[in-house]
């Protein structure tokens, strides 16, 4: 058994199985915690009936998804109607394979590194994640169109434009780190952030971190960018006509995307499985125990980000569509571009990993943004120019 695991292929297979199971569980429990956290933030108690503390609620929800009548409306485009949730779920579930879960591992304990605790380590790991993010648009646009429902179609159109627009600052923010690290491999990016006086990338480039975080909210269709499922305007959003397990797949796909996205941002900016001053988390620690420890650290970081996603969802209201577009094109894109240019210059002069230059550049850029927004008198992104004044009645008009 152990000797089998020394082979990277079988180790990857086993790891993929384990993480796939963990993802499925985590996705189911994400729904539970979403409900719990929303309840707590609204002074309620949340689901607590099924099992102790309501912990069996995901099972009950799953059973309900399975047992509800699976309606395919009469005038929908049937193949696409079935395909869309499959795309949403499938793409959400294949992203995790390039995440570095636990560094290098010495399985048999003879001191030599046998395998890498990553399902696959292609040289283009980051591009793989970006590609999956790009393909995820299809789930929304096909789902919305196949519905044959005008509101769902609106949602699909909005969402497509939104996802395409937010992919650009996202790519640029990632590019900043790629320029700094000089690698597209996620494991290499993690390793570049630890040991030997190196710090996490968030310290180097807090602005890029903020941009990536914001675009992740948009890419996963979460509040404040959840215009694709704005119930108040669009009935239900792009999945209006979906029921039963197909609807459930959209749901699960969204959470799977959140998990993968959180993993991405943790690996890019927060040192992956690394925690400073904790023994057993250095790259040299290759025992199985160290791998488990690293995996749990990464899992905890991802969980923290999931909490952040939910926290923001139950705090912020939704953006208006034009504000959303302005935020991307006029707010984040110039900042990200400036950051990329600056980092390129730093690479050219050989100071890309010098924290005084990176952090200083970010601070200067932030100050510039502040000054510009002060001159314009509007948020970096936000308000529509030349808004007409609101007319109000000074007193109750006489009849």
């Amino acid at each position: 058994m152990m000797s089998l695991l020394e082979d990277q292929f079988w180790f990857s297979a086993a790891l993929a199985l384990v993480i796939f199971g963990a993802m499925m569980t985590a996705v189911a429990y994400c729904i539970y915690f979403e409900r719990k956290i929303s309840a707590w933030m609204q002074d309620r108690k949340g689901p607590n009936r099924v099992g102790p503390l309501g912990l069996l609620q995901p099972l009950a929800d799953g059973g309900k998804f399975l047992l509800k009548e699976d309606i395919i409306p009469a005038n929908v485009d049937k193949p696409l109607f079935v395909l869309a949730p499959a795309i949403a779920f499938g793409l959400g579930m294949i992203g995790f394979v390039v995440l570095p879960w636990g560094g290098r591992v010495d399985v048999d304990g003879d001191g030599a590194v046998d395998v890498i605790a990553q399902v696959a380590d292609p040289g283009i790991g980051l591009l793989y994640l970006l590609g999956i993010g790009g393909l995820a648009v299809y789930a929304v646009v096909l789902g919305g169109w196949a519905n044959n429902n005008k509101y769902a179609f609106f949602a699909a159109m909005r969402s497509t434009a939104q996802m395409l627009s937010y992919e650009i600052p996202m790519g640029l923010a990632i590019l900043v780190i790629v320029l700094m690290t000089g690698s597209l491999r996620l494991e290499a990016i993690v390793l570049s952030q630890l040991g030997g006086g190196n710090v996490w990338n968030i310290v180097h480039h807090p602005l890029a971190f903020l941009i990536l975080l914001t675009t992740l909210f948009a890419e996963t269709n979460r509040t404040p960018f959840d215009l694709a499922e704005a119930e108040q305007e669009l009935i239900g959003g792009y999945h209006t006509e979906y029921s039963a397990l197909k609807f459930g797949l959209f749901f699960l796909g969204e959470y799977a995307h959140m998990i993968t996205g959180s993993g991405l941002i943790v690996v890019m900016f927060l040192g992956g499985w690394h925690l400073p001053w904790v023994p057993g988390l250095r790259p040299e620690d290759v025992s199985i125990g160290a791998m488990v420890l690293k995996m749990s650290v990464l899992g905890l970081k991802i969980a923290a980000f999931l909490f952040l996603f939910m926290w923001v969802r139950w705090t912020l209201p939704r953006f208006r569509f034009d504000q959303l577009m302005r935020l991307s094109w006029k707010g984040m894109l110039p900042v990200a571009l400036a950051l990329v240019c600056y980092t390129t210059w730093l690479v050219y002069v050989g100071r890309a990993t010098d924290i005084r230059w990176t952090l200083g550049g970010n601070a200067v850029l932030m100050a510039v943004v502040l000054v510009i927004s002060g001159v314009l008198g509007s948020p970096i992104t936000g308000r529509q120019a030349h808004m007409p004044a609101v007319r109000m009645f000074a007193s109750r008009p006489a009849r």
Partner: protein
Amino acid sequence: MIRDEDILNVDEPELTASERLYFPILVGMRTTFRHIFKKKITVQYPEVQRTLRVENYRGVHRLNRDADGRVACVACFMCETACPAHCIHIVAGESPWEDREKYPAQFDIDELRCIYCGMCEEACPVDAIELTPEYDLVGRTREEMIFDKEKLLEVFDRTNGVKPRKNPKITGYVATGRRNGSEPPRPGAATS
């Protein structure tokens, strides 16, 4: 008409530097985070019953009994006529008692169709039908939710102590003696 001096043109307020950089988001997030640890206001329903404001709530109907324990209804069809949801169905029969001509041989209310508007009790000339503050109205079948005369009288027996009160100020209803705590009106007194 609206005069010009009544109209104010309100410009949007200038944003401060922190607002332009979306810093107030953090204030909002602090607020929601604090609420996680606050005392919860959820009422665990079947175990803990809410105390309702009895005078305002309109729940399950009841058919009142008069002082002799007979059904107070005189089968005048006022409630059935008034009902906007058509959920009351009355079959009148000749009264076995001498003080009135008719009594309801059958009196059904479909609690699933009812919209609990209270028009029936407004319409009733003898205050025989009333809405009680009972709200835990459940059943397993639709048939079970059609309340017949016996069931409605049972509701009365169960809720005898509770005195639903119609607020005269709100409904314009002139209170009868019974509502002020005196004797229930004699059946037939209203018709005379």
